[in-house]
């Protein structure tokens, strides 16, 4: 029972990350492989605030999310200047830079050992320690994220973002601000990733660099690709499917020494197979 709850809690957190990645990569067409870095900053910042200040949990998560809004705008800015394939390199660079900071800045992040002992969320005098309690928080978080995403995609804002993906110049010729729309999208993606980080850090009560490295960014991308790009349903389905995968793998007898590699290998294989045979993923639109 506890096992299933943990799975759901994690999947719900990853739905927020799926929304973040889908918004940038799927909807606006900015190919970012550094969403895990923003996720990580949200997690570390929340952990730091809860461990070293007396700020209540909601305030800490909001602050972390706000910081990630700014950060994501900053790391997405190069995409306004350089075209797709160049931005990928920049985005890779940002991801490696973030990993270097997480791993080497021992004073702030605990280095490779990470930060243990992140306090559990305390809201109105109630402490959310057990997964069965925590699930309430992540479900609310996921529901809010999905609601925001749905409202945006339904509004003219969604159409504007999709138009930008197809032809920025034509959008400018219609009197619309391409810059403004892209910055808004980056801000929202940052808010999603940052709050996911806050929930993640407090749920595991531990953060370390391995959760936010390049492999994690690729995992986020796999989630969106498998679930289906450009749709809300795809972003929700993807995390639930992909997080179930390691459990299924656990049933097969793979030596533990290569289990991690086997898992990443399967994520990579999924990316190739879906691109070749089903670019729209399970519930999405064709990339």
């Amino acid at each position, binding site marked *: 029972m506890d096992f299933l709850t943990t799975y759901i809690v994690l999947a719900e957190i990853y739905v927020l990350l799926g929304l973040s990645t889908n918004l940038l990569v799927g909807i606006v067409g900015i190919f970012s492989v550094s969403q895990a870095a923003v996720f990580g900053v949200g997690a570390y910042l929340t952990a730091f605030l809860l461990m070293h200040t007396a700020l209540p949990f909601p305030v800490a998560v909001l602050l972390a999310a706000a910081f990630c809004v700014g950060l994501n705008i900053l790391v997405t800015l190069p995409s306004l200047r350089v075209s797709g394939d160049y931005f990928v390199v920049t985005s890779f660079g940002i991801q490696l830079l973030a990993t270097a900071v997480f791993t080497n800045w021992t004073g702030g992040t605990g280095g490779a050992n990470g930060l243990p002992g992140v306090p559990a969320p305390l809201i109105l005098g109630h402490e959310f320690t057990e997964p069965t309690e925590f699930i309430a928080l992540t479900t609310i978080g996921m529901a809010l994220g999905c609601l925001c995403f749905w409202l945006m995609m339904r509004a003219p804002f969604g159409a504007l973002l999709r138009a930008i993906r197809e032809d920025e110049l034509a959008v400018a010729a219609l009197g619309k601000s391409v810059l403004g729309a892209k910055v808004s999208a980056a801000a929202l993606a940052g808010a999603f990733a940052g709050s996911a980080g806050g929930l993640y850090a407090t749920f595991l009560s531990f953060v370390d660099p391995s959760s936010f490295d390049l492999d994690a960014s690729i995992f986020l991308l796999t989630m969106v690709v498998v679930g289906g790009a450009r749709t809300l349903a795809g972003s929700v389905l993807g995390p639930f499917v992909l997080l179930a995968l390691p459990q299924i793998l656990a049933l097969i007898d793979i030596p533990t020494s290569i289990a991690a*590699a086997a898992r990443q290998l399967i994520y990579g294989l999924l990316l190739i197979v879906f691109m070749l045979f089903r670019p729209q993923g399970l519930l999405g639109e064709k990339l």
Partner: protein
Amino acid sequence: MLWLNLLINGLVWGCALGMVAVSFSLIFATTRFFHVAHAAVYGLGGYVSWSALKHGLPEWAALLVGIVVCGLAGAAIQKLLYERLDRRGATHLVILIASLGLSAVMQNGIAAIYTSNVLQYGLPWGNRTTIIGGALLTNTQMLTVVFGILSYLGAMWFAHRTVLGKRMRAVASNPFLAEITRLQPRQVHIAVMAIGSALVCIPGVLVPLDLGLQPFGGVPILLTATIAVIAGGVGSISGAFVLALVIAVLQNLSLLVMPGEWSIGITFGIFVIFMLFRPRGLFTG
């Protein structure tokens, strides 16, 4: 004379990085999308040569086996994956995601077979040193410089003097025109992928001679090399090689003022700022 040693280490490392940059430059200038899996081909070369060596082949033969396997792998990747996607009218985003997937498959495949632990070639001659002009150089380092310069000259000769190289540059400058003038860009793409992949095997073996083999070692090296390719101006082989030397020297000299674990972070930090202000490369208008 710490700085002199760092300068020399930088130049040697720059030759290795330059080979990766030149090989990637050939591919990127022709196909125009970010072939991330090149990092995995780099890794493949090192491991295949290691296996060949452990099966009793002499060093030169082991390297040759690696080069051939990498060349074939490159051609196969182009033919079976990229070309197939391209024929279906896939966007660059789709090809890139597939390339990222392939990179993950190859690297983790290597990790599953050889484990993630660092493997050593165990060739004692590699660490023997010679003093040249007051500087201490290992055999591996000298080999790296020789191969680096030869690779650069070879790539220049290939691009400017051979028929295939000229076709490659024509396809790179105008794919549409190349299509209708029967330059057969698809064949050129396969050939260039094979050549670039074969070339990247050389640094893929030489770098681990010193540092040992790691399944995931290729990614930061490829990205650093890509910085050199972009900063040197896409399509310029000389630009890529020179910038690789510059970046490698700067990375090494930076050790004078800060600890080594930060150097990769600083490199990418500078690159991100660079992309914001000079996105088309240093040597382009």
